[in-house]
């Protein structure tokens, strides 16, 4: 310990508060007067490990903070259940199968069937529309566009992912509704023999509008996650495909897509999670109906989350409990979706580490 190896560390780490005392290690008691003079190793006994040290405290504090996440997840389940149970006990209908939602009556009766159906249907529409487009854009950004275009475009996509959902909802209701209505009328005129596009109107504030708005919202998220996955494709695998005489698309199909598949599945699942839980955009675009219908273009539609936002203001005690019960179902669904997505990502990570 003759010289001061700490100098270089000091200079790289900025304002490092390593005091000279620490730099001398154990056993040296006095404080150094001069940096040029090499400190001597002490002859005394090594200091004992302190039982209650700052170290232990800090470690405990950060462990507790980490554990907080688990506490919160458990607390969410516990508190939602505790508030939902009284309402479920007061329910005179069947919570799982009934369409109607009338928890504020003196004989409360409510069921989640129609709401859950609307949630799933709107999310499916959103994914069916958004995923192919999002993957195309992600491929465009990662493998087709010149870098000069891909960088700013990727930046814009990231920004769009940050736009609040209430803005998309407002746009869907004030602007997008009109072209969707025109399109619905056109579909109804020529394709009413398909049950999806039947009905007598009015059209517009339909599950299709809600689903499309959701699609536009999910698009940036799925795009930016899958772009990242595609960009991680090892360059040497792409070169291997090209050296075998692959065209660009064949290179993408042989090297990029198989490599990115688990990541893309996870991105889609995360997008699904986002779509299932989306509240405000659907509350603004759907016109409330408690019904199970595959008609995509007629006014109507509902979702668990949108119903919570819409019905909350008029809810009494049981009403609130009923909404919380529906939220519990939503929580459970999204938990399953997210855990599946994460499990896929984790497996992929192990696989990648093993392959490297």
């Amino acid at each position, binding site marked *: 310990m003759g010289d001061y190896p700490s100098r270089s560390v000091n200079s790289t780490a*900025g304002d490092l508060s390593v005091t000279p005392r620490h730099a*001398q290690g154990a056993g040296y008691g006095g404080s150094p007067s001069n940096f040029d003079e090499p400190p001597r190793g002490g002859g005394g006994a090594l200091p004992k490990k302190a039982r209650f040290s700052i170290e232990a405290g800090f470690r405990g504090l*950060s462990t507790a903070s980490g554990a907080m996440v*688990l506490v919160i997840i458990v607390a969410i389940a516990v508190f939602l259940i505790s508030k939902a149970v009284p309402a479920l006990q007061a329910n005179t209908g069947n919570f799982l199968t009934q369409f109607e939602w009338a928890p504020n009556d003196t004989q409360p009766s409510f069921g989640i069937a129609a709401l859950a159906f609307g949630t799933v249907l709107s999310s499916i529409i959103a994914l069916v529309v958004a995923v192919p487009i999002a993957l195309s854009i992600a491929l465009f950004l990662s493998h087709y566009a010149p870098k000069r275009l891909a960088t700013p475009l990727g930046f814009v996509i990231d920004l769009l992912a940050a736009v609040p959902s*209430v803005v998309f909802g407002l746009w869907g*209701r004030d602007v997008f509704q009109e072209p969707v209505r025109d399109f619905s009328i056109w579909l109804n005129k020529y394709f009413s023999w398909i049950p999806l596009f039947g009905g007598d109107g009015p059209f517009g504030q339909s599950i299709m509008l809600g689903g499309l708005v959701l699609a*536009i919202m999910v698009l940036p998220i799925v795009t930016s996650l899958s772009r990242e996955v595609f960009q991680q494709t090892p360059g040497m695998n792409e070169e291997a495909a090209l050296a075998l005489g692959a065209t660009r698309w064949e290179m993408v199909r042989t090297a990029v897509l198989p490599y990115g598949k688990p990541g893309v599945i996870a991105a889609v699942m995360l997008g699904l999670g986002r779509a299932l839980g989306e509240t405000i955009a659907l509350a603004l675009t759907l016109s409330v109906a408690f019904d199970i219908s595959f008609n995509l273009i007629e006014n109507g539609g509902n979702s668990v*989350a949108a119903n919570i936002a819409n019905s909350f203001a008029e809810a009494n005690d049981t009403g609130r409990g009923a909404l919380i019960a529906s939220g519990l179902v939503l929580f459970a669904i999204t938990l399953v979706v*997210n855990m599946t997505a994460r499990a896929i990502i984790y497996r992929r990570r192990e696989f990648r580490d093993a392959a490297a």
Partner: protein
Amino acid sequence: MSLLDREVPGVVMTPDNIRSRTLPVAVNLAIAAGAFAVAAAVVFGLAIGNWVLVVVLGAAFYLVGLNVVAGRIEGRRAARDRAMKSLIYAACVLAILPLASVVWTLVSKGIGRLDADFFNTSMNNIGARDPEGGAYHAIIGTLEQVGIATLMSVPLGVLGAIYLVEYGRGKFATTVRFFVDVMTGIPSIVAGLFILSFWVLIVSPWFNNGQPRFSGFAAALALAVLMLPTIVRSTEEMLRLVPGPLREGAYALGVPQWKTILSVVLPTALPGIVTGIMLAVARAAGETAPVLLVAGGAAAINFDPFGGNQQSLSLFVYQQAGDASRYAPDRAWTAALTLVALVLILTVAAKLLARRNKLSR
């Protein structure tokens, strides 16, 4: 001559068959013209739609025609390559249209009420026939709620990340990491319901003579629940980027681990951590559902986050959107523009900061 060449001609390349014909530009243009002409004839001839349908059908005919003709001239594989390329480009155009429309509407409609009055007044005593009214109270609410949420979630989140990176070993750490990831996907409305049942319905009556009470603080709690996993995740990623030798250098000098973390690791990762926090803040500022459930919204200015209903900018947009007054949509759009500006400034600043970050993957 090999078996391969005998069975599947055209696979084995020799210097004599490496040349291929490319599609002349004139043919390309001719296909385009033909496609749109056919589309127009079909649409107007059968009277089944307007110009929008002509454009859509024409584009579809063009892509199909181009690929059939190109396939004849250039070969099957080149045609497939071209088809996928055109589909990918088409998808980009298709996606840009609505997104551009959102931006355009936001600016053109939002500019209507973008006046001093909007930022100086609240909605107190504004009736359905009054064109005035502003979002001052909502801006105050957003800033307070997001500020308090940040104060709560940042220390927790950063410490949690420190646990995961520096101390966490074994099964417990893996569990925590897994649930941090899962928690990022919890819908905001569920976070709102959680704080509703926990804080508003159970805790707040203790302070309010047994009556449940909405408050800005409750909204901050809900936002903190949403921000926490995002902050843990981004901070964890940044801490992992701090080079190991930097830590070892400090350990080798006898610096205790907690001090190494606080004085070496955190400062090095700081720009990245701040970026993550700003992105979390931006996302929280745009959340509507939890605020609706636990802060309740209000028309008047309320500076006290613990004292009763409070408004927020996003909730203001939602409530104005549902308001019957003919002046409400203008207010909603201007508030939306303000909200987007706030969120985008935070996001852009965070991304620029991230670009200057010296630690990179």
